[in-house]
Protein backbone atom coordinates (compact mmCIF):
# COMPACT_ATOMS: atom_id res chain seq x y z
CA UNK A 1 0.00 0.00 0.00
CA UNK A 2 3.02 2.27 -0.26
CA UNK A 3 4.34 4.55 -2.97
CA UNK A 4 7.90 5.73 -3.44
CA UNK A 5 8.19 9.52 -3.48
CA UNK A 6 11.23 11.34 -4.86
CA UNK A 7 12.09 15.03 -4.47
CA UNK A 8 14.59 16.90 -6.64
CA UNK A 9 16.69 20.06 -6.76
CA UNK A 10 15.48 23.09 -4.75
CA UNK A 11 12.48 21.13 -3.48
CA UNK A 12 14.71 18.37 -2.14
CA UNK A 13 16.84 21.01 -0.38
CA UNK A 14 13.79 22.80 1.06
CA UNK A 15 12.28 19.57 2.40
CA UNK A 16 15.57 18.03 3.49
CA UNK A 17 14.34 14.83 1.86
CA UNK A 18 15.36 13.10 -1.37
CA UNK A 19 13.23 9.98 -1.17
CA UNK A 20 10.68 8.28 1.05
CA UNK A 21 8.38 5.30 1.12
CA UNK A 22 4.93 6.53 1.91
CA UNK A 23 1.77 4.65 2.91
CA UNK A 24 -1.17 6.09 1.03
CA UNK A 25 -3.79 7.29 3.53
CA UNK A 26 -7.45 6.85 2.63
CA UNK A 27 -8.70 9.78 0.63
CA UNK A 28 -5.42 10.20 -1.23
CA UNK A 29 -5.86 8.80 -4.73
CA UNK A 30 -4.51 11.52 -7.05
CA UNK A 31 -1.25 13.41 -7.46
CA UNK A 32 -3.00 16.61 -6.32
CA UNK A 33 -4.39 14.97 -3.17
CA UNK A 34 -1.00 13.48 -2.35
CA UNK A 35 0.69 16.84 -2.77
CA UNK A 36 -1.87 18.57 -0.53
CA UNK A 37 -1.51 15.87 2.12
CA UNK A 38 2.28 16.23 2.18
CA UNK A 39 2.05 20.03 2.29
CA UNK A 40 0.10 19.69 5.57
CA UNK A 41 3.04 18.03 7.36
CA UNK A 42 4.05 21.46 8.54
CA UNK A 43 7.38 23.31 8.62
CA UNK A 44 9.16 23.20 5.27
CA UNK A 45 6.56 20.97 3.69
CA UNK A 46 4.50 23.96 2.67
CA UNK A 47 7.01 24.18 -0.21
CA UNK A 48 4.50 21.75 -1.76
CA UNK A 49 1.49 23.98 -1.05
CA UNK A 50 -0.88 25.11 -3.79
CA UNK A 51 0.47 28.11 -5.64
CA UNK A 52 4.07 26.90 -5.37
CA UNK A 53 5.54 26.12 -8.73
CA UNK A 54 5.93 22.37 -8.33
CA UNK A 55 5.79 19.77 -11.10
CA UNK A 56 5.04 16.09 -10.68
CA UNK A 57 5.85 12.83 -12.41
CA UNK A 58 4.18 9.45 -12.02
CA UNK A 59 6.25 6.41 -12.91
CA UNK A 60 8.79 8.65 -14.60
CA UNK A 61 6.35 10.50 -16.85
CA UNK A 62 5.12 14.06 -16.37
CA UNK A 63 1.79 13.98 -14.52
CA UNK A 64 -0.96 16.44 -13.63
CA UNK A 65 -2.82 16.96 -10.36
CA UNK A 66 -5.78 14.86 -11.47
CA UNK A 67 -3.71 11.78 -12.35
CA UNK A 68 -4.28 8.73 -10.14
CA UNK A 69 -1.84 7.42 -7.57
CA UNK A 70 -1.94 3.71 -6.78
CA UNK A 71 0.23 1.54 -4.50
CA UNK A 72 3.54 0.65 -6.12
CA UNK A 73 3.79 3.92 -8.03
CA UNK A 74 6.95 5.99 -8.16
CA UNK A 75 5.90 9.60 -7.70
CA UNK A 76 8.29 12.56 -8.04
CA UNK A 77 7.91 16.23 -7.16
CA UNK A 78 10.31 18.86 -8.48
CA UNK A 79 10.60 22.48 -9.59
CA UNK A 80 10.30 23.42 -13.30
CA UNK A 81 13.24 21.94 -15.17
CA UNK A 82 16.30 23.98 -16.18
CA UNK A 83 18.55 21.68 -18.20
CA UNK A 84 19.86 22.13 -21.71
Amino acid at each position, binding site marked *: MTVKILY*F*ASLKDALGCAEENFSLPSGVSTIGELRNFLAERGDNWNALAEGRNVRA*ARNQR*MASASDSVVPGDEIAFFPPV*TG*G
Partner: protein
Amino acid sequence: MSVSVQQADFDVGAEIAALSQDRHEVGAVASFVGLVRDISGGSNVAAMTLEHYPGMTEKSLEEIVEQARARWSLYAVRVIHRFGRLEPGDRIVFVGVAGAHRGESFAACEFIMDYLKTRAPFWKLEETPEGAHWVDARDSDDSAAARWEKE
Protein backbone atom coordinates in the same frame (compact mmCIF):
# COMPACT_ATOMS: atom_id res chain seq x y z
CA MET B 1 21.36 4.47 -29.41
CA SER B 2 19.99 7.92 -30.01
CA VAL B 3 19.89 9.21 -26.41
CA SER B 4 22.67 9.30 -23.81
CA VAL B 5 22.67 10.81 -20.32
CA GLN B 6 26.20 10.81 -19.00
CA GLN B 7 28.77 12.55 -16.84
CA ALA B 8 31.50 12.34 -19.48
CA ASP B 9 32.16 14.87 -22.20
CA PHE B 10 31.43 13.97 -25.84
CA ASP B 11 33.13 14.36 -29.22
CA VAL B 12 31.02 16.78 -31.27
CA GLY B 13 32.81 16.09 -34.57
CA ALA B 14 32.45 12.33 -34.20
CA GLU B 15 28.78 12.62 -33.25
CA ILE B 16 27.98 14.81 -36.26
CA ALA B 17 29.94 12.53 -38.60
CA ALA B 18 28.10 9.46 -37.28
CA LEU B 19 24.74 11.00 -38.18
CA SER B 20 25.51 10.80 -41.91
CA GLN B 21 27.96 7.87 -41.89
CA ASP B 22 26.95 5.33 -44.55
CA ARG B 23 23.76 7.29 -45.17
CA HIS B 24 24.28 9.02 -48.50
CA GLU B 25 20.65 10.13 -48.58
CA VAL B 26 21.51 12.66 -45.84
CA GLY B 27 21.92 16.17 -47.22
CA ALA B 28 21.52 18.26 -44.08
CA VAL B 29 22.81 17.84 -40.52
CA ALA B 30 21.70 20.52 -38.06
CA SER B 31 23.21 20.43 -34.61
CA PHE B 32 23.32 22.30 -31.34
CA VAL B 33 25.84 22.44 -28.51
CA GLY B 34 24.87 24.04 -25.19
CA LEU B 35 27.71 25.28 -22.97
CA VAL B 36 28.15 26.53 -19.40
CA ARG B 37 28.30 30.34 -19.43
CA ASP B 38 30.50 32.22 -16.96
CA ILE B 39 27.73 34.68 -16.21
CA SER B 40 24.09 34.19 -15.26
CA GLY B 41 21.59 36.82 -14.20
CA GLY B 42 24.42 39.30 -13.65
CA SER B 43 26.46 37.02 -11.38
CA ASN B 44 29.74 35.33 -12.20
CA VAL B 45 29.40 31.59 -12.35
CA ALA B 46 32.38 29.54 -11.15
CA ALA B 47 30.73 26.19 -11.85
CA MET B 48 27.39 24.48 -12.01
CA THR B 49 26.09 21.09 -11.02
CA LEU B 50 23.43 19.40 -13.10
CA GLU B 51 21.09 17.18 -11.15
CA HIS B 52 18.77 14.84 -13.00
CA TYR B 53 16.18 12.12 -12.43
CA PRO B 54 17.83 8.88 -13.56
CA GLY B 55 15.41 6.72 -15.49
CA MET B 56 12.93 9.47 -16.24
CA THR B 57 15.61 11.57 -17.94
CA GLU B 58 16.33 8.95 -20.58
CA LYS B 59 12.63 8.20 -21.08
CA SER B 60 11.70 11.85 -21.52
CA LEU B 61 14.51 12.45 -24.03
CA GLU B 62 13.54 9.34 -26.00
CA GLU B 63 9.94 10.52 -26.08
CA ILE B 64 11.00 13.94 -27.38
CA VAL B 65 13.06 12.29 -30.12
CA GLU B 66 10.07 10.10 -31.06
CA GLN B 67 7.88 13.18 -31.33
CA ALA B 68 10.40 14.86 -33.61
CA ARG B 69 10.58 11.74 -35.79
CA ALA B 70 6.78 11.68 -36.01
CA ARG B 71 6.68 15.32 -37.17
CA TRP B 72 9.52 15.31 -39.67
CA SER B 73 11.11 12.74 -41.95
CA LEU B 74 14.53 12.26 -40.34
CA TYR B 75 17.33 9.78 -41.03
CA ALA B 76 19.13 10.01 -37.68
CA VAL B 77 18.85 11.84 -34.38
CA ARG B 78 21.30 12.04 -31.48
CA VAL B 79 20.84 13.63 -28.04
CA ILE B 80 23.51 13.70 -25.33
CA HIS B 81 23.00 15.48 -22.02
CA ARG B 82 25.60 15.60 -19.27
CA PHE B 83 25.06 15.70 -15.52
CA GLY B 84 27.35 16.43 -12.57
CA ARG B 85 29.68 19.35 -11.98
CA LEU B 86 30.66 21.47 -15.00
CA GLU B 87 32.67 24.64 -15.43
CA PRO B 88 32.29 27.62 -17.78
CA GLY B 89 33.07 26.58 -21.35
CA ASP B 90 32.15 22.95 -20.68
CA ARG B 91 29.65 21.29 -23.00
CA ILE B 92 26.27 20.45 -21.44
CA VAL B 93 24.11 19.15 -24.25
CA PHE B 94 24.34 18.01 -27.87
CA VAL B 95 21.46 17.61 -30.29
CA GLY B 96 22.12 16.51 -33.87
CA VAL B 97 19.58 15.79 -36.60
CA ALA B 98 20.20 14.35 -40.08
CA GLY B 99 17.60 14.79 -42.82
CA ALA B 100 17.38 15.11 -46.57
CA HIS B 101 16.98 18.89 -46.58
CA ARG B 102 17.86 21.71 -44.21
CA GLY B 103 14.36 22.91 -43.32
CA GLU B 104 13.35 19.75 -41.52
CA SER B 105 16.77 19.24 -39.90
CA PHE B 106 16.80 22.76 -38.45
CA ALA B 107 13.19 22.55 -37.28
CA ALA B 108 13.62 19.17 -35.61
CA CYS B 109 16.85 20.22 -33.88
CA GLU B 110 15.26 23.36 -32.45
CA PHE B 111 12.10 21.45 -31.50
CA ILE B 112 14.13 18.89 -29.53
CA MET B 113 16.03 21.63 -27.69
CA ASP B 114 12.83 23.52 -26.86
CA TYR B 115 11.13 20.42 -25.53
CA LEU B 116 14.23 19.27 -23.67
CA LYS B 117 14.39 22.67 -21.93
CA THR B 118 10.86 22.29 -20.55
CA ARG B 119 10.29 18.53 -20.27
CA ALA B 120 13.55 16.75 -19.48
CA PRO B 121 14.15 16.50 -15.71
CA PHE B 122 17.44 18.37 -15.27
CA TRP B 123 18.12 21.12 -12.76
CA LYS B 124 21.09 23.49 -12.59
CA LEU B 125 22.74 24.52 -9.33
CA GLU B 126 25.06 27.47 -9.92
CA GLU B 127 28.07 28.39 -7.80
CA THR B 128 28.52 32.17 -7.66
CA PRO B 129 30.43 34.51 -5.31
CA GLU B 130 27.11 34.98 -3.48
CA GLY B 131 26.83 31.23 -2.91
CA ALA B 132 25.16 28.29 -4.61
CA HIS B 133 21.63 28.64 -5.90
CA TRP B 134 19.22 26.73 -8.09
CA VAL B 135 18.57 28.32 -11.46
CA ASP B 136 14.99 29.46 -12.02
CA ALA B 137 13.13 28.24 -15.08
CA ARG B 138 12.68 30.91 -17.73
CA ASP B 139 9.27 31.89 -19.10
CA SER B 140 10.90 32.26 -22.52
CA ASP B 141 11.58 28.51 -22.50
CA ASP B 142 7.90 27.79 -21.96
CA SER B 143 6.90 30.05 -24.82
CA ALA B 144 9.59 28.55 -27.08
CA ALA B 145 8.12 25.09 -26.48
CA ALA B 146 4.54 26.31 -26.75
CA ARG B 147 4.97 27.64 -30.29
CA TRP B 148 5.33 24.06 -31.59
CA GLU B 149 1.85 23.23 -30.29
CA LYS B 150 0.23 25.73 -32.62
CA GLU B 151 1.89 24.67 -35.86
